[in-house]
């Protein structure tokens, strides 16, 4: 015993007899109806004694760039057959009536398709995002998700907005002009005082014993200015020696 796949052309004939204006096309695999008629077609397929599609296997959205298809894989557990119904929706404003009143099993799946594909299911009791968070930009399963109008790329280009106009990233030291740019301040380490103090002797006293600001201020002024911290200027040496002597 295997499941019989009912040809889409046969389903299309049945749909055409009941709803002449609903059918768009039929292939061997599936029957396609326009989106606005999908609820009455679904109810017909469910309640028809021959087709008896009481079970909704799965509900899928497919983005064909010109239009969206919402695909309903249906089956009858009693008769053990399956068929595929497709509803075609406009790409700019995709709206498909909800079939969650026909099959309760569509409730979560329609929310999934809305979240990831951006198809609005009108009449759904609680249509909101299910996997992504509220406020997520765009619908990622769309084929044009990474190329939205205006060059907006949701989720990928968040960081460039944090930089000033014209600047694309953090400055790179390997770029030409990078190392020359005065963005990194020079660190001047006051290590020279130690060696100078060892040499002169007076400086050591000034650093250790002299707690007053007056003893250090001349040293701070002179060190960067001289450019050579190993040789303190005679003024500073004299000043410290004088104070140490006091």
């Amino acid at each position, binding site marked *: 015993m295997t499941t019989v796949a009912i040809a889409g052309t046969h389903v299309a004939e049945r749909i055409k007899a009941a709803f002449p204006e609903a059918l768009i096309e039929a292939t061997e695999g*599936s029957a396609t109806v326009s989106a606005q008629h999908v609820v009455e077609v679904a109810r017909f397929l469910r309640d028809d004694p021959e087709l008896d599609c009481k079970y909704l*296997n*799965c509900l899928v959205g*497919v983005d064909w760039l010109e239009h969206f298809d919402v*695909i309903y894989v249906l089956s009858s557990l009693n008769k053990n057959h399956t068929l595929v119904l497709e509803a075609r929706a406009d790409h700019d404003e995709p709206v498909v009536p909800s079939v969650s009143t026909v099959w309760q*099993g569509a409730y*979560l799946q329609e929310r999934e398709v809305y979240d990831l594909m951006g198809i609005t299911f009108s009449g759904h009791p609680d249509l909101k995002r299910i*996997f992504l968070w509220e406020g997520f930009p765009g619908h990622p399963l769309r084929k044009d998700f990474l190329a939205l109008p205006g060059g907006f790329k949701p989720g990928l280009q968040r960081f460039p907005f944090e930089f000033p106009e014209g600047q694309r990233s953090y400055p790179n030291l390997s770029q030409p002009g990078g190392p020359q740019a005065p963005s990194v301040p020079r660190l001047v380490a006051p290590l020279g005082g130690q060696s100078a103090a060892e040499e002169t002797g007076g400086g050591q006293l000034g650093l250790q014993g002299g707690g007053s600001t007056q003893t250090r201020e001349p040293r701070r002024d002179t060190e960067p200015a001289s450019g050579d911290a190993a040789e303190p200027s005679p003024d500073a040496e004299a000043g410290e020696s004088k104070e140490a002597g006091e």
Partner: protein
Amino acid sequence: MTNLHPPPYVVNIGPQHPSTHGVFRLRVTLDGERILDAEMVLGYLHRSMEKLAEERTYTQNIPFTDRMDYLAAMTGNLGYCLAVEKLADVEVPERASYLRVIFAELQRIASHCMANGTFVNDCGAWQTPLMYMFREREKILDLFEMTCGARLTTNYMRIGGVAFDVPDEWYPGIESLMAEMPDRISEYEEMLLDNEILLARARDVGVLTPERAINSSASGPLLRGSGIAWDIRKADPYCVYDRFDFDIPVGHQGDCFDRFIVRLEEMRQSVSIIKQALAALPGGPVSTPVPLALSPEPGEAYARIESPKGELGFYLVSDGGPAPYRWHVRSPSFINLSTLKDLSVGRSLADAIVILGSLDINVGEIDR
């Protein structure tokens, strides 16, 4: 004294499963202990597999199916490979089909061990039954490790067969396990079927009528627990399931206890299938050569299998390229959750935990 906030109260359960099947949040509105409304909040484990799969070749997508239902990686592999084989019209060698059946049924036993163990956990029989069932699951995972090197994310099935043939030491391992397994299942039954805790917590709780089950697209033990003898292995046989003799266990009440019994009995049926498959295991190759960048003809295919959780289906659309144009998973855990609100509303909060445990969800498969 100021008045406390009057009912109803909104309480968040989660975001994790009470016995950590994954990160799941249930927002319940309570009047006292009675549930007025239950809303699930999903997506904590969403990895956007369906989008990622559109950038990869058909073969590269197989590891994603391990990570959906990570407690049943083999059946995830199998469902996907069957869908690609249907789309690309690939024949599978007979030995590979038998091995697929054996590993899928081993996985079903392992998954049902987890499902029943954690369900009894949720009922309040804390940890002991789970540890008993872990004992057998451990041996099954050892058999997986022997064959494909992995215990959880197996990545074993390939398009056109399986990755490796089983090693020599695998045969005594599986034969001794299959010899002791019926006794082990009887042991679970002796331990649990008259268990006062389980009966008090699971009987007549979460009753799902057959009509409601079909209308909600319920599948697997949830559907069979409601008394509908629907099993895709029988109704629409894939691999070589039509060559084996096994029964479809069904429940009568449709309550949580029936789902538990159905799972226990399915383990016994799986043992029977594995024994038959081992006895008839043919020789020969285990895979067909398939191009690495397989490019099926433009078209669509829906293939489904009976996974431990229910109907696992893959809807694939090809545009003739080496990567699928659309890769959709019909995951049983996700769709079985449609029934959760109906089953919980009107019951007490403690019942909702038992109902959730009896659905046997896996959040990796829900969020994908």
